[in-house]
C-alpha cells in the first residue's frame, strides 16, 4: 500500500508540471498583454502614455523578460504560495482568490455529498423495483437531468423563484457578509444559500450516478449467490444490504475522478448565472481582460483540485477494494 501511495504521489509531480506549462501557454495565447490594453485605454482618454513609466511598469510586472523566464518565475512563486499580482485589481492574487477557493471547495464538496446521498437512495430504490412506475419516472428524469445543461437549469430556477415566490435566490451568502471575516453568522448564511447551487450543479452528476448504480445493482442481483440466498430464505433486506449493494457502490468512489472535473466545470458557469462569489465570474473577467496571473492561478488551482481529488479517490478505492490493492493498478 505504501508503495502504491508513493508511486501515485510521484506520478502527480510531472502531471502538475505539465498542467502548469499548459496553463501558462493558454493564458499567454491572446495577442498583446494587459499592459497594451492599459496603454490603449490611457491613449483613448487623451493622455499620452509616458514611455518611461511604461517601461517601469513592464519591468515591475516582469513583462520585459522572456516567456520562459516568466513561466519559471510564476512556477517558483506558486510553490512558495505567491501567485503573482493581479493587474486589474492591483492586489496580490493570493489575497483575491483565497476566500473564493474556500467557497469553491465548499460547493464542490457539498455537491459530491449531494450526488452520493440522492443517487444512493434513488438508485437502490429503483434497482430493486425494475420497470416499475418509479423506475420509469426516475429513468426519464435522469435523461432530462443529463440533457439539461446546469446553467440553463439555474436560469429556470432563478426565473421560477422570481415569478412564483418573488424571491431572489442568487448569491452564495447574504450581501452584508461579503468581504467580511468569517463568523458563525456568515457560515450560516452560506449554508442557507448553498442548496440551490448544489442542486443545480449536482443534477447531471446525480442522474449519471443513478444510472450506473442501477445498472451495477441489477447485474449483481442476477448473480447466483443472490439466488441461493433467496432460495434459502434470507430476509430480502439483508440479502440486499449484505453483498450486492456493497459491491455495486464501487462507482461512488471510482467515478470521483470523472465527476470532479464536471462539478468544478459546472460550478464555474453556474456561478456566473447565479452570481456566486466562487471562481466563476472573476475567472471570466480575468480571462477577458488578460489578467494572466489571476486567471492562470484559478486554472492551476482548479486543476490541482481535480488531481488531488482523483488521487484521494484512487487511494480510497485501493483501501476498499482488495482487487485493486493487490494488483497495484486502477480498474479504470
Amino acid at each position, binding site marked *: 500500500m505504501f508503495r502504491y501511495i508513493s508511486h501515485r504521489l510521484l506520478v502527480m509531480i510531472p502531471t502538475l508540471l*505539465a498542467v502548469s506549462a*499548459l496553463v501558462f501557454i493558454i493564458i499567454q495565447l491572446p495577442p498583446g498583454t494587459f499592459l497594451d490594453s492599459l496603454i490603449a485605454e490611457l491613449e483613448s482618454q487623451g493622455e499620452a502614455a509616458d514611455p518611461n513609466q511604461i517601461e517601469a511598469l513592464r519591468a515591475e510586472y516582469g513583462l520585459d523578460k522572456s516567456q520562459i523566464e516568466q513561466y519559471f518565475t510564476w512556477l517558483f512563486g506558486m510553490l512558495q504560495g505567491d501567485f503573482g499580482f493581479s493587474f486589474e485589481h492591483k492586489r496580490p492574487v493570493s489575497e483575491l482568490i483565497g476566500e473564493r477557493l474556500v467557497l469553491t471547495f465548499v460547493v464542490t464538496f457539498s455537491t459530491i455529498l449531494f450526488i452520493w446521498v440522492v443517487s444512493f437512495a434513488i438508485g437502490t430504490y429503483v434497482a430493486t423495483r425494475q420497470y416499475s412506475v418509479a423506475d420509469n419516472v426516475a429513468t426519464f428524469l435522469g435523461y432530462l437531468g443529463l440533457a439539461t445543461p446546469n446553467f440553463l437549469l439555474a436560469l429556470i430556477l432563478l426565473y421560477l423563484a422570481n415569478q412564483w415566490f418573488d424571491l*431572489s435566490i*442568487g448569491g452564495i451568502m447574504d450581501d452584508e457578509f461579503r468581504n467580511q471575516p468569517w463568523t458563525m453568522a456568515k457560515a450560516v448564511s452560506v449554508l442557507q444559500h448553498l442548496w440551490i447551487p448544489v442542486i443545480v450543479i449536482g443534477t447531471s452528476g446525480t442522474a449519471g450516478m443513478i444510472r450506473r448504480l442501477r445498472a451495477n445493482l441489477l447485474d449483481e442481483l442476477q448473480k447466483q449467490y443472490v439466488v441461493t440466498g433467496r432460495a434459502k430464505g434470507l430476509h430480502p433486506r439483508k440479502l440486499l444490504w449484505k453483498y450486492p449493494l456493497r459491491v455495486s457502490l464501487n462507482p461512488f468512489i471510482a467515478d470521483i475522478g470523472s465527476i470532479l472535473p464536471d462539478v468544478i*466545470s459546472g460550478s464555474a458557469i453556474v456561478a456566473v448565472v447565479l452570481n456566486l462569489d466562487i471562481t466563476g465570474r472573476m475567472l471570466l473577467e480575468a*480571462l477577458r481582460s488578460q489578467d494572466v496571473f489571476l486567471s492562470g492561478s484559478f486554472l492551476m488551482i482548479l486543476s490541482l483540485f481535480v488531481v488531488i481529488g482523483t488521487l484521494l479517490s484512487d487511494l480510497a478505492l485501493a483501501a476498499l477494494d482488495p482487487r485493486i490493492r493487490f494488483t497495484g493498478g486502477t480498474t479504470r
Partner: protein
Amino acid sequence: MKDDGVEEPVPHYVSREPFDPDDEVALTPEQEKYYMAGQWRLMWWKLRRHKVAVVAGIFLLLLYLIAVFAEFVAPYELQHRNSRTLFAPPQAVHLFHEGKFVGPFTYRYKSRFDLENAQWIHTPDTRRVDRVRFLCSGGYKGSEYKFWGLIKGDVHLFCPAGGRATIYLLGTDRLGRDVFSRIIHGSRISLSIGLIGIILSFVLGIAIGGVAGFYGGWVDNIIQRIIEVLKSFPRLPLWMALGAAMPVKWSPILAYFGITLVLALLDWPGLARAVRSKLLALREEDFAVAANLMGASTKRVIGRHLVPSFASHLIASASLAIPEMILAETALSFLGLGLRSPITSWGVLLNEAQNIEVVALYPWLMAPMIPVILTVLAFNFLGDGLRDAADPYS
C-alpha cells in the same frame, strides 16, 4: 425365420426421394437471413427494435433537415427588425374567431409605449384577424432571403397575412427580431458545430489513439500521460480560456472554425483512449492473428480487420459526444466567449437571456433552451440505442 439358423438378409431398400446431404444442417430461410447478414445489417436490426432510439433518430433527421432549409422554415429573415414590436410576447395562433372557424390566424398586436415603466405593451386587437398563409411567397417585410447566401427567394413554409400583420410564435427580442425565426436560423450553426467538432475530434482521436495502440512502448506511454494531463483539467474553465484567447476581430467563418477546433482539442482524449484499448485488445484476437499469419500487411490487418470491428463502438461513442459539444458551444456563447453576433447559434441567442431582470420581464427569451435540451436528449437516446446495437453478437 428358417430352421438352419441363418438369418435372411433384410431386404435392400433405397428411398426414391432425392437426397440432400446438407439437409441435416440446412437453415430455415429466416435463420439463413440472420446468419448470413453482415455486421452492419445485424446492428440495424438490433437498433430497429430500440423504439426510443429510432424515434430520436427520426427527430434528429428532421432537425437537421430544418437546419438545411432554415430560410424556408423560418417566416422571417435572420436580421429582420421590426421597430414597432420590440419585446413582443409570443402570438397565439387561434382557430376560431367569435365562435366561427376561420382556420389558423393571429390577432394583430396593438402596441404602445408605457412611459411610467418605460416598457412596451403589446395587446392583441381581437377585431383584426390576420390569417396565416402556408407555402406562401413574400408580401411582407423580412420575407426576402438568400438561400445559403446564394439563391434569392421569398418562399416560406408559413407566413403572416401580409402588410403589417405579424406572426411571432415565440415573441421578439429587444430589437424586434422574431425569436422563432432566429432559433431556426441558429440551428444551422448549433447543429453543425457538433458534427464538425466530432469529425475533428475523430481524426485526432483515431490517429493518436491508433499510434499509441499500435506502437505501444514509450510512444504509448507519452500519449497516455498527455491524455491524463488533459483529463485532469476541468473542461469548461479550459474551454473558457481557449475561447477568450480567440481574437475578437476574427471573421465569422474563422470564429466558427476556431470554436470547433477549441471544442475538439479537449474532446479527443476520450476517443483516443477508446481506440487504443480496443486496438490492444483486438490485436490479440484469433482473427487478427490469423490474418497476420496468412501474410496480410499491417496496414491491411488494421484497415480491413481491426477498424471495422470497433467502428460501431466509435460511432456510438461519437453520438454521445456530439451533444456534449453542442452544450459546450452553447455554454461558451452564453458566456460571451464563444461565437458572437452576427453569427447566430442557440448559445448566442441565450446570451440575451443572461440577465434575470430581462428574463423576468420577457421570459420568452429563454425559448432557445428548448431546442438545446431536445437535441441533447435525442442524441442521448440515439447514442444509447447505438451503443446497445454496436455489439450485435451479444
